[in-house]
């Protein structure tokens, strides 16, 4: 139990650091810059234990998003987007779970869930998060097609980074 808390806390600090001091600092040439905007920090929420209390999950989502907000002067945008993950996650896990279900101890990783389920699970929640984030940030500022393009490209870049990070932390069994 204590081990799980320490592990998640460590993951949280590491991902926030990577997000704020590495990913947010990278700039790409021309207007591509505005389209590729990965948010890998939400991997922290995705990897929380499968049977976490739903209210506690919402609170963690809020705190996680709010931490990013403090560092990027966005006051509430990431918090709000993360809350949507918190809302959708429990139901979505039930939906994609195999009929016989997972054990309570299953790890929410590429290895634990299997490639197909992990991609569906991560892909949907990442897309939801980015859609919420970009809508809140740029509602009636950008045209809808432009906004959608940003959501899709950024979500894809986040998904690729998440898969890469999963492959890097593969463990032998």
């Amino acid at each position: 139990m204590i081990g799980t808390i320490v592990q998640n806390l460590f993951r949280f600090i590491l991902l926030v650091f990577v997000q704020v001091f590495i990913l947010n600092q990278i700039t790409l040439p021309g207007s591509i810059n505005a389209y590729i905007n990965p948010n890998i920090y939400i991997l922290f929420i995705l990897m929380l234990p499968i049977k976490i209390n739903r209210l506690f999950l919402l609170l963690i989502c809020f705190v996680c998003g709010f931490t990013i907000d403090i560092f990027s002067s966005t006051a509430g945008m990431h918090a709000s987007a993360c809350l949507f993950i918190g809302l959708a996650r429990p139901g979505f896990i039930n939906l994609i779970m195999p009929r016989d279900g997972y054990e309570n101890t299953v790890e929410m990783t590429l290895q634990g869930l299997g490639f197909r389920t992990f991609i569906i699970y991560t892909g949907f929640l990442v897309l939801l998060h980015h859609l919420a984030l970009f809508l809140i940030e740029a509602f009636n500022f950008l045209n809808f097609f432009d906004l959608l393009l940003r959501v899709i490209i950024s979500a894809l870049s986040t998904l690729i980074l998440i898969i890469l990070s999963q492959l890097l932390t593969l463990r032998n069994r």
Partner: protein
Amino acid sequence: MRNFFLLIRRYNFLLAFLLLQGVSFFLIARNDGYQRAAIIGTSNQITGQAYEAYSNVTDYLTLGITNKSLAEENAKLRQGDSSAVYELGFELTHVNDSNAMQQYDYISARVINNSVKNVNNYLTLDKGSLQGIMPEMAVISSNGVVGIVKDVSEHYSTVISILHRSTKISSKIAKNNYFGSTIWDGKSPEYAHLYDIPSHALVGVGDSIVTSTYSGIFPRNILVGTVSEIGNSGQSFKDIEVKLSTNFRTISYVYIVRDLLKAERDTLETQTIEELKQ
């Protein structure tokens, strides 16, 4: 009453979601634009220190570019120095100090955090209220306009850059004084658009766009950028694309402009508006 509690218990998950979402949107609304102070932001001490430590390391990466732009500015200042001027006559060069008074103070600051990726971009500077920085002060670089101060803590301040959806820089075409507003379109950090220029105004590619004093934030004639493309938006106005003179990707030192006459101007202008309302 009992049913009410049952209802809460039944939908506690959804209610908690709505409550926290409400808090988020309250914070977002409070953070909108530079007139309103954010409740919490990167100007606060803890994040300010984190960014300062980070930029102490990464500043070395842009040292070359920073040196070059500072050297260019030094050369420009040297040109305006009295030692670089050939004096034509005694009467002409005599400057009477009581004739002019200082209107603007320039406070130099280091950029310790910067973003160009989002639709709303901010910079964090290493100067704060201890150095006399206040919200709504103009921020410029050696190349041109940067943005407007939003929040200030003791040692740090945050700046809304031009690259922000709520920034409108009141600007004009330098050669003929037609004025409009420069607004970023949320795409490339190199370009912005100048709106509200009437279609009969003469303007060509390469013309300078500078600040006007209508907004009361920027000093006049600070370079915003140069015209890079001219199109038509509707019938009576031009849509002018402006190449921004400040390179937001490499910016590392800026000046915060303190307008010593701002309070006087603001009081007078609000007084006029109040009188008209009555």
